[in-house]
């Protein structure tokens, strides 16, 4: 039962206070007075300030850093402005891994995103099936990879991939398969990255797709069954058209996170062997914090992140566009 606003002297008194800025101009309704107020700023500014000082300002400052020769030796604010030199060096591609890491990363986005979408879709469809007993229990287990701290999971995978005595190679040996040097070979390590990325990120895809699947009205399936549609036809002509938009949105988000993968290459084998799997974020991090004793490296890293951010911006732009479409429905 809704409570009716009671007549209250107290409220009337505060309503007609002369110092109440909004009081006079706004309509004399409760909503007018209570919900439109400058007091909101006092509630928002503390958080905004903290966010600005420790997050936004450093980012803005790093734009300036990208035009300097900063490195560990002059990071105490004695670095010099050097104009576009960092950008020129990166874009020229001479002596840097700029284009290589970009290419490798886009390859990783292509493979890992396809795998994530397919695996997420397959699991969502399987575990939405009415034939599985205890779907809820299954789903709780399936979300586990998302629950665990990523560092822990990736390190566990690193031990699993350990050559030649890790769990995976031990199993391969016992069923007669050749043992694989997972992290010591460029292609194998790339496959390992994909496995770990899919393992870490499918719960997101699966959850989004499951939510979409559950919003499909069952009557549609019943009707199609009456009309004699096969299960493939139901998937193709009923399920997919109804879930593709949330799926597309999730795909763009997950592409962006694949593009920004850092922990997986860093913790598995440092982007190796010998930098063959150097992903963009890892290379940026290495320049800034592992090669920072090389003059100019922190400035170059800042410039590198600026260039990378343009690409992420494109992801975000597409995401907002698609997200906007989704929201309108």
């Amino acid at each position, binding site marked *: 039962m809704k409570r009716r606003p009671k007549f209250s002297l107290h409220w009337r008194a505060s309503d007609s206070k002369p110092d109440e800025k909004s009081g006079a101009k706004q309509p004399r309704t*409760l909503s007018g007075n209570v919900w*439109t107020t400058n007091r909101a700023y006092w509630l928002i500014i503390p958080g905004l300030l903290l966010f600005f000082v420790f997050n936004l300002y450093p980012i803005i400052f790093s734009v300036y850093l990208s035009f300097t020769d900063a490195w560990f030796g002059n990071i105490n604010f004695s670095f010099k402005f050097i104009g576009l030199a960092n950008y020129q060096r990166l874009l020229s591609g001479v002596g840097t891994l700029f284009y290589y890491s970009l290419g490798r990363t886009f390859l990783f986005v292509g493979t890992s995103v396809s795998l994530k979408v397919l695996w997420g879709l397959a*699991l969502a469809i399987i575990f939405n099936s009415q034939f599985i007993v205890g779907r809820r229990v299954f789903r709780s287990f399936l979300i586990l990879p998302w629950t665990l701290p990523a560092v822990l999971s990736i390190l566990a995978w690193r031990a699993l991939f350990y050559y030649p005595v890790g769990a995976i190679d031990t199993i391969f040996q016992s069923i007669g398969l050749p043992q694989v040097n997972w992290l010591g070979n460029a292609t194998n390590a790339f496959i390992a990255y994909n496995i770990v990325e899919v*393992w870490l990120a499918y719960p997101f895809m699966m959850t989004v797709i499951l939510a979409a699947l559950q919003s499909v009205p069952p009557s549609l399936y019943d009707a199609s069954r009456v009309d004699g549609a096969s299960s493939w036809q139901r998937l193709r002509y009923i399920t997919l058209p109804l879930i593709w938009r949330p799926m597309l949105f999730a795909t763009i988000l997950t592409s962006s996170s694949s593009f920004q993968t850092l922990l997986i290459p860093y913790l598995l084998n440092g982007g190796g062997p010998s930098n063959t799997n150097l992903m963009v974020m890892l290379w940026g991090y290495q320049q800034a914090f592992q090669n920072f004793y090389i003059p100019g490296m922190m400035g170059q890293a800042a410039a590198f*992140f600026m260039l990378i*951010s343009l690409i*992420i911006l494109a992801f975000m732009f597409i995401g907002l566009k698609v997200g906007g479409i989704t929201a309108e429905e």
Partner: protein
Amino acid sequence: MKAITKNLLIAAATIIGILIVAVIIFPIYVIIVSSLSSAVSLFTPFQPFPNPLSFQAYYNVLFGSTARFFHRLGNSLFVSLLSLALTLAFVIPASYALSRFRFAGRRTLLYGYFAFNQFAAGMGLSGLISLYAILNYLNLLDSLVVLAVIYTAGGIPFNTWLLKTYFDTIPKDFDEAAFVDGASYFDVIFRVLLPVAAPGIATVAVFSFMGSWGEFIIANTLLSPENYTVPVSLNILLGSPATNWNLFAAMAILYALPVVVMYIIAQKYLQAGLAMGGVKR
């Protein structure tokens, strides 16, 4: 006949489901088994069952002196709980205001937070370079308090969005009625809204805790060995060939435990937050 087919289908589907889950949780199983084995090095072949069963690794991690797990755990707990408290203190008022009030700049701020959320990781690393320079200049590089503040600041856009969306689901009549009865803003937030918004606030709390608890890159960059948090020391532990793998595994399990317990308790809300992925509306 039809019933038999249906039962067969159920059996087949459930078996497929169990197989898939088994494959997926295999890495977790491996850590658990290793943590229950007696001294295995990284060079010992993997055994599918702990043989013999031993709790020595847990004992060593908890009471032994070499791994200093308690010290690391204390560091992680301190940072995560401080950041959690700060997050709630800054996020609750802001998300309340964004949900209830209309004011100039509201949409700009909301979209700004939203955009930042999507953009954060890439720019965040670049901001870390400046942060390193600034903190180095102020001689604050190796401070757990500063680390907690950085985590809080980083989580403000996401957490504010999350809680704002939750506040949106609470009818305005709730606070309106309280205002009519003469309550102050303070009263409305603390006595009326907070009890109703408890699930939303709990979700933010858990997200904040899990974020700081699991963060690796910033801690790894800023801290010195004395102040290492658990994830940083886990990486170092696994990187050294002398490490006993069962010791690492036991430490990892203990490290994961609080997060898993939280997840089990708050599963429903967290899944909703996961589906949102930091993005809604």
